């Protein structure tokens, strides 16, 4: 044991050990790098030619369309958005899941609390704003470009309403360093860009 220790204190032994470690370290780091590159190219090869077959069908902005059952945003603390883009209070929800459009506080396609970059502070308004018919080009652009990183999520989406529900949710894009919201005031975004990073 002592011999070993004395041996280890010799400068050249240390040097050799260090040299070997360095070589191993460098080679394995380089190898690792190679591998990540290969993976990345693999991903790229798959994408550009082969467009993701989006299933999304968009509303044509024809809100007078008669509908008997509505899906709605379910989760809200006080507000709900139905699939026609109406935002109402929970108490104004009809049995069929649609908002009661005769209630005084019910509004359609409302962008309250939303900023110019497409980020809102209230989820229900984000969904309603996103359902505006004129947001379709924006969403299509997003699907074709930005959504590649979120394929898992957006290939499951079927129509405009589902797309807006999914798009407005917070995601890894809404956080900085995986632990704080980029902008805690406006974290629900229907737009292409993530929330603007608030200076700390």
């Amino acid at each position, binding site marked *: 044991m002592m011999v070993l220790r004395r041996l280890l204190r010799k400068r050249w032994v240390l040097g050799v050990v260090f040299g070997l470690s360095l070589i191993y*370290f460098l080679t394995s780091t380089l190898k690792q790098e190679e591998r990540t590159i290969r993976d990345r190219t693999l991903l790229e090869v798959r994408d550009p030619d082969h467009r993701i077959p989006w299933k999304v069908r968009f509303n044509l902005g024809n809100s007078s369309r008669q509908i008997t059952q509505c899906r709605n945003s379910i*989760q809200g603390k006080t507000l709900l958005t139905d699939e026609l883009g109406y935002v109402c209070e929970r108490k104004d929800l009809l049995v069929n899941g649609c908002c009661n459009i005769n209630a005084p506080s019910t509004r359609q396609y409302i962008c309250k609390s939303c900023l110019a970059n497409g980020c809102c502070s209230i989820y229900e308004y984000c969904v309603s704003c996103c359902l505006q018919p004129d947001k379709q080009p924006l969403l299509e652009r997003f699907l074709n470009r930005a959504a590649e990183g979120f394929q898992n999520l957006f290939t499951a989406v079927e129509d405009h309403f589902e797309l807006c529900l999914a798009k407005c949710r917070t995601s890894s894009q809404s956080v900085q*360093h995986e632990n704080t919201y980029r902008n805690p005031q406006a974290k629900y975004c229907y737009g292409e860009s993530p929330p603007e990073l608030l200076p700390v």
Partner: protein
Amino acid sequence: MEPLEGTKSDSDHAPDQEPLPSNSASNCSQLTLKLEFSSKVVEHEYIVAFTGYFSAKARSLYISSALRNAADRALEWHVVPRENPASDFPSDFELVHIRQASARSLLTLEDHPYIKRVTPQRKVFRSLKYIPSPEAAAPCNATRGTQKWQSWQSSRPFRRTSLSLGAGFWHATGRHSSRRLLRAIPRHVAQILQADVLWQMGHTGSGVKVAVFDTGLSEKHPHFKNVKERTNWTNEKTLDDGLGHGTFVAGVIASMRECQGFAPDSELHIFRVFTNNQVHDGKIEIKQITDGNFNEQGSHRVGKVWELTANRVIMVSAIGNDGPLYGTLNNPADQMDVIGVGGIDFEDNIARFSSRGMTTWELPGGYGRVKPDIVTYGSGVRGSGMKEGCRSLSGTSVASPVVAGAVTLLASTVLNRELVNPASMKQALIASARRLPGVNMFEQGHGKLDLIRAYQILNSYRPQASLSPSYIDLTECPYMWPYCSQPIYYGGMPTIVNVTILNGMGVTGRIIDKPVWQPYLPQNGDHMDVAVSYSPVLWPWAGYLAVSISVAKKAASWEGIAQGHVMVTVASPAENDSEVGGELTSTVKLPIKVKIVPTPPRSKRVLWDQYHNLRYPPGYFPRDNLRMKNDPLDWNGDHIHTNFRDMYQHLRSMGYFVEVLGAPITCFDASQYGTLLMVDSEEEYFPEEITKLRRDIDNGLSLIIFSDWYNTSVMRKVKFYDENTRQWWMPDTGGANVPALNDLISVWGMAFSDGLYEGDFTLADHDMYYASGCSIARFPEDGIVIAKNLKDQGTPPPQNTPHLLKKGRKRERKKEGRERRREKERKKGGRKEERKEEEGKDKPPSLSCVFLPCRSFHSFTCVCGLVCVCGLVCVCGLVCVWFSVCVWFSVCGLVCVCVV
């Protein structure tokens, strides 16, 4: 993040679906089971019990020798033969047939030294009768009046067992503690929990979607038939499980062969969210995905979980593997809307590793909630192996899929899936859970999962609100520990019980008309004052009701029990009501029972300062004990009822009354207390507090301070690089905020140093270990110091003059804190390595080298971290100075060379 299993009931389930092909009578429990017992003596047969276990031959020998001494030698007897394999083993009784046995001959038998007693053999008859119940005519879903299964008001221990469905032998909690049949316990957890009863009714989890957030699942695993979806959310390009944890979890929920899961027909959605590196193999511990923002409002993770449950996803999560220390609950299992699951072993003991203690969000002003919600088997449970076959694992992340599987199976038994939501499921689970005897509520929650009873409750469920805990009995020990350990008295800090309101009526709700306190006058209810505060909105599915109990002035010298109740009415929008704006309401009663004693004398009253103990660290606080290198972050807020509970118990056993101060020092009447206790405080003191404390001490208050280490150069060295946030974290204080403490005590001419010492000492015959701490730098001449020289752990060159440190920069702190999952491995290696380094340190500047195998990548206790912590100059070759490179080193599994 712990592995999560969520279940979502299929909401597009046709409402007019035909009843399941099973026996619908048992579904609706229209038949009442009537049980009768009778027993009679079997003639001529006697059970001879021995004092120990003997072989058949020995037993026969003893009996014959005993009967030889009997007066009438002509006694005709023979041993009734046993025909079972167990008869080969020693036994402690024998069944003997004796014709014409007289009382005297029986007595001679009992005289034998090895015979304990002789009793006549009895036969027990049990008859079962199925009687149609009076409400048999009512259809299953018809209103039978709101059944209030939570409204049990007696505070007697709830240990009712019926022999009907659901009282399986293995459920009997604790009554067989003297004779445990270890070998005979089947390890198939679904069968132990009697899932087969539900399977036989035709419920197998069909139509329920289960999401498993774990390490993935291989594509063609033979145990699964209904994997709907597998997605990968990690940076590793695979969907397969490289570790076996995700497969195991999925297997406990839905395996269909070998080790059967609970719900083989459920739809599995596999989310691969943990890489092989992020899970520590062998310990079944998912590394915490560190999350900085630890208050319930701000954290994105808490928000995400709210979003899930608000969308009717039932979330089940493991409470954590950080036991037996208290106050170690993990997020998200400690959230009100999540079912937090703790682990027990097959003998109904709380598993040692299971996290426990109250939640700590509410400190210092409030008091923690009861968590875990329920416990179930989590030790040595068998589940699917990675590729095939079965394996057995332990951990609360094993217990949580047991509950997730049970929840899946339960959800599939409910015809009207609209009724299944996160709150109603949790209500059913906790109302049906079987309480374990001798375990307090902060360890077992509501008790052990009982699948069959939960099934019965869920299938007669009407939307309603309920409370957890459902009653407050501060006299009930040990279940209501720590409340039951100390009676309340006039002038004491109010006792706060943080009750959770579960609202099964809707995702959002509110409390209408303030909660009403109703004292029971015949039961001295007027001797206590009760105040409540509550969540303005109950969302999602839950809210709090904090009950603060104090003693009325007129009971200042009264002793006795006082009772009363609080009534709460919860309202939710009625979504299936044809009338717009309709509301569902539900009223729940919270019985309260307390023991009041006369106010104890000042000298017996101790006040624990909680206010200056920071709750969930908003900054990075290193451990008090620097030797605990595997887990250098202190994320368990200190509290006398959690990690300092031993101190609490000791003080109580010495007759002291311990109260908790959740407010600044200026907010208490010092003339009522003998001692103020400050342990490891991290927060600073306001000038007003310092002035007041000085005055209080002049007026006879005693002050006990437990300080800790604080050394800026060590703090610089324990900083670490976090791979998640990609930034360096510097500790905000040492183990305690010594500069702040020095500000506080300087007026008496005392000060702590910035040194760092450790060692063993003996005080009053107690052997003690001083882990890491400072020394006393200054003390008044006429004071009494009990001193002992300890080993200097410190790195800074010793300062000649005891100097006071600069004030910490706590208030300006901008960064929100870190939270780190502790790793419980106490590797011997860590210590050994360190000793080596110290040897090397003796002879600077000679070169010495330490070979340290890098153990784990994600914990920053990589070798370099270790060396840095010891305060030695760490240069890993050339590159190690740059920390992330050192991380690379460890990834390669290479030895790291550190030149000291």
